């Protein structure tokens, strides 16, 4: 299958080709790749792309996969509407 047709990150529309190109430029850590391709920054918080990117980095840099760091996990765990947060606060007071 063509690398252009393999989606690595569904949130941000990143293909395997995008990822390989960037690694060939020398960006081989998850955090660097994240900053340029936005993998791991979408609504799924890297739940779908995280392990795929990790595996590709491991292959490319010939590093054991457990030595490849994945992205920083940030709150919120799931998307919450701003309005819902305000309403919840109103209920509390």
């Amino acid at each position, binding site marked *: 299958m063509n690398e252009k047709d393999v989606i690595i990150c569904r949130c941000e529309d990143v293909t395997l080709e995008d990822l390989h190109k960037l690694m060939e430029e020398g960006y081989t*850590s998850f955090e660097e790749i994240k*900053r340029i391709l936005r993998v791991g920054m979408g609504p799924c918080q890297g739940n779908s792309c995280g392990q795929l990117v990790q595996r590709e980095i491991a292959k490319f840099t010939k590093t054991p996969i457990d030595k490849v760091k994945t992205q920083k996990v940030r709150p919120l765990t799931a998307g919450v509407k*701003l*309005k819902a947060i305000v309403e919840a606060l109103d209920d509390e007071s």
Partner: protein
Amino acid sequence: MKANIVIIGAGISGVSIAYNLAKKGVKDIVVFDDNYLSGGSTGRCGAGIRQQWGTKNNCILAKKSVEFFETAQEELGYPRDIEFKQEGYLIVAMTKEEDIQFEKNVLLQNSLGIPAVKLTPLEAQKIVPHLNIENVVSATFCNTDGHLNPFTVTDAYYLAAKRLGVKFYYQEKVLDIIVNNNKIEKVITTSHEVLTSKVVNAAGGYSKEIGKMVGIDIPVYSEKHEILVTEPIEKIQGPMVMSFSLNIYCQQVPHGSFVMGRSDPFMPKGYNIDSSWYFLDEMAKTVVNILPPIGELRVIRQWGGLYNLSPDRLPIISDVNELPGFYLACGFSGHGFMFAPMTGLLLSEIILGEKTTLDTTDLNINRFKNANFNDYEKSVV
């Protein structure tokens, strides 16, 4: 290893300084950063570019930086998009005092060639239709302010500097700087010892710690500021919307998501950058009040980063009388990102002993000696 100049910090200021020095022909420049590319304050900032300031220095720094950003894509020869989008900053006044201050600000800005205008609440609403103008007294708008992608523009500077021969070492922390007879001798990192006589402190939130290594007390401190980002939607908002008294800035970035932040007046000084539920609550209340439809959007992520605050909230771009060869680019007070082109240009001129593009007296660290600051920059969130 030997170096002409060691730059500590590869955030936007550090890479801009490196690029400007290399462009002027300086060889053997080495940059150290203890994080990833834009892993510090640069990559954590609100991605805004603003020229609407209340002090002359900030206005000029911002205006000249915008002129650079307008051509940066070509000048830096960058293959990706730096996403410089000039759709303005709309700053709303919520009180009579703010309204009076904004009147003065616009006069100052116009006198320096910044095309800001004062608007009525209804005029402001024409620019941002979903703005709640209920308690808005007036607004100011500058159509050449806007957005810039912190990750890609830092990457652009980094690649351009690298092409000019600058060496970068990431994930490498500076542990000490050795000074002998008031001369810098070497920089010790986790993996290198570099013989050098010149060091640039562009360490952002950690610049005070770098100062301590050479016995220079830089009158700055760090403080956490937080931001959140929503899911992306189709474009509904051109400009950044900002209010000092409501304590908010909020923009829709080209990617489609909304990025917004506010400060916490009770935040203790320090290096903590953890995300807090308190910020999330306060941010949600503030944004739903002033931009009601944004309440329908889901929060995707939140994070914190450090402001490095100076006593007058103006940058320190300076040499140091007490230690020749030590240079400072710090104390940006939350706005180092948007001033970076001028930071790089001015500091490279100072280092090379050239005539500076601007008078840098008011940016020099000497200004804090025996001074009180009544006239500080108030246009800060």
